[in-house]
């Protein structure tokens, strides 16, 4: 564990080996937000898998996202009994639609959800905000 995890004693992180998502998380160490693309039928695949969900291609290409997108929906979690998250409340969980047309679950950080002037709304533009956690970096977002 690196020093900055002490405030979140048991932050939940992806676990390995897990072959579908390992390349995604490997790239996060370089602060690259990756998604998959099928060159045969031009379909965007996310979350990571080893097959195209539209055609029968099983050889997908990794691409790197700009990290820019918009909030599709969010909630402010004010109560959690999970030991890793109970002290983090309130925190903002969201679906973000990246400009490359994939949707991911994430946090919106650096925002006061109870400030009516914060700009936190559905449709707000956001930018990826990396949270380094040793073996991986978590792709959260902040308002753009």
């Amino acid at each position, binding site marked *: 564990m690196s020093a900055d995890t002490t405030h979140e004693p048991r932050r939940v992180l992806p676990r390995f080996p897990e072959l579908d998502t390992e390349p995604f998380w490997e790239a996060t160490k370089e602060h690259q937000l990756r998604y998959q693309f099928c060159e045969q039928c031009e379909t965007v695949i996310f*979350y*990571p*898998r080893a097959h195209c969900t539209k055609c029968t291609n099983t050889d997908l290409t990794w691409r790197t996202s700009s990290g820019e997108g918009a909030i599709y929906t969010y909630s*402010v*979690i004010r*109560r959690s009994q999970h*030991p890793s998250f109970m002290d983090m409340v309130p*925190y903002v969980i969201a679906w973000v639609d990246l400009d490359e047309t994939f949707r991911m679950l994430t946090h919106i950080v650096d925002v006061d959800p109870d400030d009516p002037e914060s700009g936190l709304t559905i449709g707000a533009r956001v930018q990826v905000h990396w949270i380094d956690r040793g073996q991986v970096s978590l792709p959260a977002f902040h308002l753009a």
Partner: protein
Amino acid sequence: MTRQRVAIVGVHEFPSRHTHGSITPLQMKAQCAARALEDAGLSWGDIDALYDDGDGINWPGFYMPQYFDLDLKVVDTTTVGGSSFEFHVSHALRDLGSGRASVALLTYGATARSSQTSIGTGAKYSEMGPPNPISNMEDCWGPTLVSDYAQFAHRYMYDHGVRSEQLAEIAVTARYHALRNPDAVRAIEDLQLRPGSREMTVDDVMNSRMVADPLHALDCCIISDGGGAVVLATEDVARNCRSKPVWVLGAGESVRYRRNVDDLTLTGAARSGPAAFGQAGVQPGEIDIAMIYDSFTITVLSALEDLGFCAKGEGGGFVEDGRLRFDTPGLAVNTDGGGLSSNHPGQRGIFLLIEATRQLRGTSTSQVPDARLAVAHGTGGTLNRTHASGTIVLGTEPGDRR
């Protein structure tokens, strides 16, 4: 071979909501099965089809037949959360209707309250078993069951103009029905449900603690113990049963999940509903009672719209001013008090079938006069990420052989 008509011939709901460790889920399932069999005038030896989603034991396909000591022709362990039981009836209609078996048993038992399971805000999804691509992408963000439905609710309100006060009306109606149901009244006392033994108001809901915006504590179902059983039979058997048969007229199933560039607010009900109504040959407007899974108020509102009881965007007005109550004209919804106010041990889909059956037998505590057609609609999983929708249409008359 002529297709057989299929009916619900026996039901039982476990009365207590707080068992204090005095009974296990398996014991509850067996007790409820015994009472439901007595209700039908049947016994264990008549059962040749078993449907089980694994409450109380893993690998139910192996272990429930031996626990009950059954000699079966059909075993089905479809596990889709709270909607499992609607899927089970759908499959029983298929299996009994085709003549593969003649008497089906569904059981449920769970002690979420006694074992203090944090269903809504706990660690449910995390670090259970080996990682998979979904857990590896999502567990790190700490979603809770409530936040999953809250994210869905937020987008729903944004797209379709629903207000929090309108969602609150669904909880108010559930409590109105619960106060007429003695088992639910005991639950209100045993579980110390707010605001106590009086009618709930919209203000009560709006002033209750925010759990995950925009869902307040009273937008969320309760956590209780509970169990139940349903026995179904082919027409030959049903005609000789002790109880008045309640006919299964149609069934529909759907599983939906988050996708890229997709309308999250369209639920599986938009597929399972038309399938069930189509098979039954009835329109939503003909339905007297709708038992709609109410894990959260938004679960009901979205289902009412996607099942076609009202158009998308009209649900807010549809639920206002007590319109869902049993004693107002039009559709009656969740007449037992629902998961919001009667019982919710985690997967309450079986109670939708039981209360719909009571209505069509004329024995509900909030009885709709001359009830002829009812719907049981289950929603399992989370509307925000992955959910299953199962719709069953029930009637007092057998209808055509379909």
